[in-house]
């Protein structure tokens, strides 16, 4: 009643071949990296709150949150730079940087606090693809440097 050996071997090969492809399709692409951290800073990813470290990779949908003494500086993969001052929170709602496929998007949602933004390649290649959102306004960017303060 055992399946023929070749079938088992074939199934095994199929699993080995298919698994990495599925894993890489599911794994989100890195969006950028934390370069500067001082004071208390955390990354909120899928409901988990992680302490932020310089050198740490960020992904689309990550939230950065700083404490009363916290500051953080980030460089995204298209050379966009973002910093947060104390008592701030911002979420990278969308980050798509695939110029060869014409797919470009950057949506940064500033929940509250102080945020600086210096535009990168996405804004240069496709200015309409960049949006900075706050609870009561949307900022469309034609470059280069903006500072926002959002109070609740």
């Amino acid at each position: 009643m055992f399946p023929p050996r070749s079938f088992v071997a074939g199934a095994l090969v199929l699993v080995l071949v298919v698994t990495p492809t599925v894993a890489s399709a599911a794994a989100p692409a890195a969006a950028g990296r934390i370069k500067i951290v001082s004071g208390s800073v955390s990354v909120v990813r899928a409901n988990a709150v992680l302490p932020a470290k310089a050198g740490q990779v960020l992904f689309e949908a990550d939230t950065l949150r700083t404490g009363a003494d916290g500051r953080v500086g980030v460089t995204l993969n298209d050379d966009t730079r973002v910093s947060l001052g104390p008592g701030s929170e911002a979420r990278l709602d969308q980050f798509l940087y695939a110029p060869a496929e014409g797919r470009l998007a950057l949506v940064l949602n500033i929940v509250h606090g102080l945020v600086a933004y210096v535009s990168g390649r996405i804004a240069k290649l496709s200015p309409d693809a960049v949006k900075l959102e706050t609870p009561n306004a949307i900022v469309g960017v034609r470059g280069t440097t903006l500072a926002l303060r959002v109070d609740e």
Partner: protein
Amino acid sequence: MNGRRLLVALTVAASAGSLSACSQPRVRTPERPHDTTVALLPDPDDGVVGRAVVSNASGAADLAEARAATRVQESRAPGAVKPLSEAEAQSLFGDLLATLPPRSHHFTLFFEFQSDELTAESRALVPAVLRAVMDFPFPEVVVIGHTDTTGTGASNIDLGLKRATMVRKLLVDAGLKPSLVEVTSHGEADLLVPTADDTFEPRNRRVEISVR
């Protein structure tokens, strides 16, 4: 459905129920007041002033000069645009700008005419790239291959990747840590000199190195 599956289904249903119970109070919370200030600042590195439009359902404001700022209160239209003084911009945002990581360094390498060989000037940039890496906290080096518009889009993505991989080898042979270098290709989608399709343009046949 066997007993075990039923148990799993019930657990899933129960947790879905408790999730929606958790999110309900959030929906009922009255909206908190919001107050947004947006300022357009000169670029911290080269002083260039860009442009931005601040909008919501009630209106829009155009920021087009150095330190131009607008304030949006609640759901009202963005307020009149007024420039901040240099002192105001510094006191509001000075520390914030000081927390920005350093700006990326860019190097562009070109090829000899109708050849896969880099020009001598381009090869001579390698030591400068290695030095630039030391300026950055947790450095990354991204090598991007570009092509002109001759050939198909897909073949140009491959060609760009081939060029970038060659430059990566050059950097690693010169002593750069392999784990810091990433290669990618923009094919013909990111031209230095805009041209029509199927146009030979030596300045578009290039490899860009971004150190950040």
